[in-house]
């Protein structure tokens, strides 16, 4: 079962790498935010999987929980940036 979890975790890691593409090449900042949000969700899962691989899942849940609770704070703050009437392209498009 461990091997399965390992493979699974690796696959999710691969998906994270793909999401990272959006983070880095996302044409706008909002795309990057979306990418980071996706990565954050996957991180939560990955943390629990790591816990299972260590056979100490109870030690890792707290971290995952913290992520679940706090992950959207960053997204909210970045969204707030645009809500405060700052243009998407602040000075010039890059």
């Amino acid at each position, binding site marked *: 079962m461990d091997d399965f979890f390992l493979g699974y975790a690796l696959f999710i890691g691969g998906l994270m790498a793909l999401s990272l593409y959006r983070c880095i090449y996302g044409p706008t900042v909002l795309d990057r935010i979306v990418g980071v949000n996706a990565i954050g969700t996957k991180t939560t899962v990955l943390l629990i999987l790591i816990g299972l691989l260590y056979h100490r899942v109870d030690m890792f849940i707290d971290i995952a929980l913290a992520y679940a*609770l706090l992950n959207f*704070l960053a997204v909210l*703050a970045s969204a707030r*940036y645009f809500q405060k009437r700052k243009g998407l392209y602040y000075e010039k498009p890059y």
Partner: protein
Amino acid sequence: MKILGLVIVALVGSVLIYATVDFPPFADPESPASLHVSPRYIEKSLDETAVPNVVTAVLADYRSFDTMFETTVIFAAGVACFLLLRIPRRRPPGPRHFRHRLTGLTFRVKDGENGKEIFLPLREFEPVDSVWTPHDFIIEKVCRYMIPFIQLFGLYVIAHGHHSPGGGFQGGVILGAAIILLSVSHNLRTALKRMREKTGALCSALGVFIFAGTGALCLALGYNYLDYRALAALLPGGPIMARSHGMLLVEIGVGVAVMGTMVWIFKNLASLGRYDEGL
């Protein structure tokens, strides 16, 4: 500059690589680092301090002096942000901008005569920031429901640092994040109403004081600084449990300090020290 950067990076990199050649292999259980000091921590900490989380035991007891200064660093950062950004003012400014809720027009209200604040009728007008943000009750509502849980979680993390990962710092950051979330989802004024500037600042100083004071208490009781065994005279459970409880006390101090400071720094950063409106 780029070339200089590359040269320096290359120099440093070569030194680092040079050193790495002689490192013990990665993850080697026989490396010197794993054999000299740390085994004792792992093997004895449960017996000596009754704390299964070795990291916490080392952090808050064996090397508690480090941790005290870590808290001090945070406190210093808070004071530094305050010192640099805060624009001192006799009276905090009242709401200056009001938005007519029906038409969506924003009015800027000056102070009346003798500097009295003017409030527009709150049913039709709402006080807003100078830069209007949509009154998004979805975010507000959800955050309101989440904040108590986040706070509880933060407290849980502080309290259970002995048994699971976590401790004062993590819990403190989570507690602080709860308040920051309140500020981000509503507005800074709401957060300020919940936690005044003075409270936050005092929290961050108080946390350091709790930590240092615990140590000083041990000193006063005739033991070495931060030697929690001294607390056995005040708490039930003998010297080993006294260590455990002393650690909890210290973790609470760290948590309080970190929470206060995080909120303090955020408020300063978000409002540029004006404390009227922010992110």
